[in-house]
């Protein structure tokens, strides 16, 4: 994992330094006094980050120094589960998050939260206890919705679909 990590960290900071900063950190035409420009700090941090990434990469290449760069055993984190299964579970979780964000404008915050909670309970494997999971999935968002709406006056999105249906 050490080599891959070193490469990814170096690439990430390199991308920020050579792609993002030139496009998204413009230098103003006039800078008062001797004040350093806005891109000075992000550039400095990106360069330090790249050096650290390269250092990690270099240390990972030698068996003698590998333990310094990679103290954590990657295998112990992953366990025996095959990588495709782990990636699939992760993919489902990210998809659930994305669908939640998309569903808020359509179904409203409350209903989208209930659906997300159901999805996450299925993904964590707790859905085996169907009745408990179902009660929690409906009751918790409802209670929170009522609490935040009434006590803190939060205006949660109601959803265009439900509005169109007159709910």
């Amino acid at each position, binding site marked *: *994992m050490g080599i891959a*990590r070193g490469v*990814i*960290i170096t690439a990430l*900071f390199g991308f920020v330094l050579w792609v*993002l900063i030139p496009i*998204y*950190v*413009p230098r103003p035409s006039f*800078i*008062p*006094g*001797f*004040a*350093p420009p*806005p*891109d*000075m*700090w*992000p550039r400095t*941090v990106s360069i*330090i*980050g790249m050096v*650290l990434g390269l250092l*990690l990469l270099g240390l990972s290449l030698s068996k003698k*120094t590998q*333990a*310094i*760069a990679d*103290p*954590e055993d990657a295998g112990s*984190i992953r*366990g025996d589960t095959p990588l495709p299964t*782990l990636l699939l*579970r*992760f993919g*489902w*979780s990210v998809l659930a*998050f994305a669908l*939640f*964000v998309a569903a*808020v404008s359509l179904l409203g*915050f409350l209903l989208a*939260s209930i659906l*997300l*909670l159901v999805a*996450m*309970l299925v993904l*964590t*494997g*707790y859905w085996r*206890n169907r009745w*408990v*999971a179902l009660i*929690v999935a409906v009751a918790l*968002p409802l209670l929170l*919705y009522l609490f*935040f709406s009434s006590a*803190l006056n939060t205006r949660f*999105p109601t959803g265009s679909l439900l509005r169109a249906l007159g709910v």
Partner: protein
Amino acid sequence: MLNDLLIAFQAVATFENFLIMAAGIWGGVIIGAIPGMTGTMAVTLALPFTFYMQPIPSILLLVALYKGSTYGGSVSAILIKTPGTASAACTTLDGYPLARQGKAGKALNMALYSSCTGDFISNISLIFIAAPLALLALRIGPPEYFMLMVFALTTVAGVSGRSLLLGLVSACLGLLLATVGEDMYGSFRFDLTVDMQGGLAVAPVLIGLFAIPELLKIVVFRNTEAQKPMQLGDNKVTRAELRRSLKSMLKGSMIGVVMGAIPGIGPSAAAFSSYGEAQRSSKHRENFGKGEVEGIAASESANNGCCGSTMIPLLALGVPGDVITGVMLGAFMIHGMTPGPMLFENNLHEVYMLFIGMLFSSILLFGAGKATMRFFSHISRIPPGLMAPIVLILCLFGIFSISNSMYDVIVLLAMGVFGFFMFLFAIPAAPFLIAFILGPMLEENLRRALAISRGDPSILVSSPITWLFASLAVFVIVITIRQQLKKAKA
């Protein structure tokens, strides 16, 4: 000062404040007792609620949650060998064996006595050390502040993970993310969307980074085996045991105070140092690790001993010592108070109210701990597979309520995924967060210092104070590298 403290005492001693502190302590103890839920989470989840409260009650609520969760972490550590918070990890060494012997009540009682003692001593230290330190800090200018923050970041990067390099990478990522939005001269940086021109708020970044990865770990690795709690015995701590542990308790409290006051060290390191010292100096050192009450006293007094003293650098210098005080820094700023030397000039009454409130909370901690001992085992029974999704929903509602905007919710979820990748690459999250919080101040002080010196970087090492902090940063790096080289060789 005494007169000011008496006035503050009158202001704090209201039913409303006691209720808020009791709720904070109670909530913190319960959250801390649940494996996987940390004090950081408790404090960050409560942050949105504080927006609608008066400044001092809101800070007292966060402090009470912090103290409660620090003690609460020992409960699941003792009962099911699963520390509710990282700082309670040391308590498992003797707490769990004692519980296995059917003396869980004794272990929990000793943890409570030690936590309250450490907490009280820590609060007293805060009252008498914070103000002099603030006076000293008034002499600190932009170059000194910059070096102090570099030192704080180095310390956090060095002690919060197994690798200094990964800690520094984490800090760089945090510093970079902190640059998103408007800079000090009004130009926008990394504004990929219009929403990003406002930058990234602390709360969604913080909660996303700590709470959401826990859920993703459970989903991806499916480590949901429920651990059954043991029955609580009604064993009491005898006077002889209390007398025997008193030395370790007092020593642990002082270790906690000193280590808590240094930015980045935190309660986990304090607990282990105190445990090591107690073991070294005890007459019963052979019993350590087998159920020695002195071991519990040492670790618990040290981790709670940090609670008050971590507020010293925050209040006096405006530098958060750990993640929780980082959140508290945000809470202070939300309420228009800027921690640092000027806090003692502009908000002295509020500072004394905070001190008095913290002393009260030590007493409340004792009451809450005693009252909730039997209840804990039931809370700890909630399986992570149910608890983690519940936490996610709490986070979503809490974050949305802060700004009434889906942007913060998206930031929360995105940071959760980012935090999970950091976990996969064994990159510690604490340096990232401290860097994200300190980043704007660090940059501002650097740019101010360079503007003052007309671009000459030698200003950063121009005074004895800058040299002191620079030397300390180098010292921390050298010591950490040495330790890691030793470990690598072993």
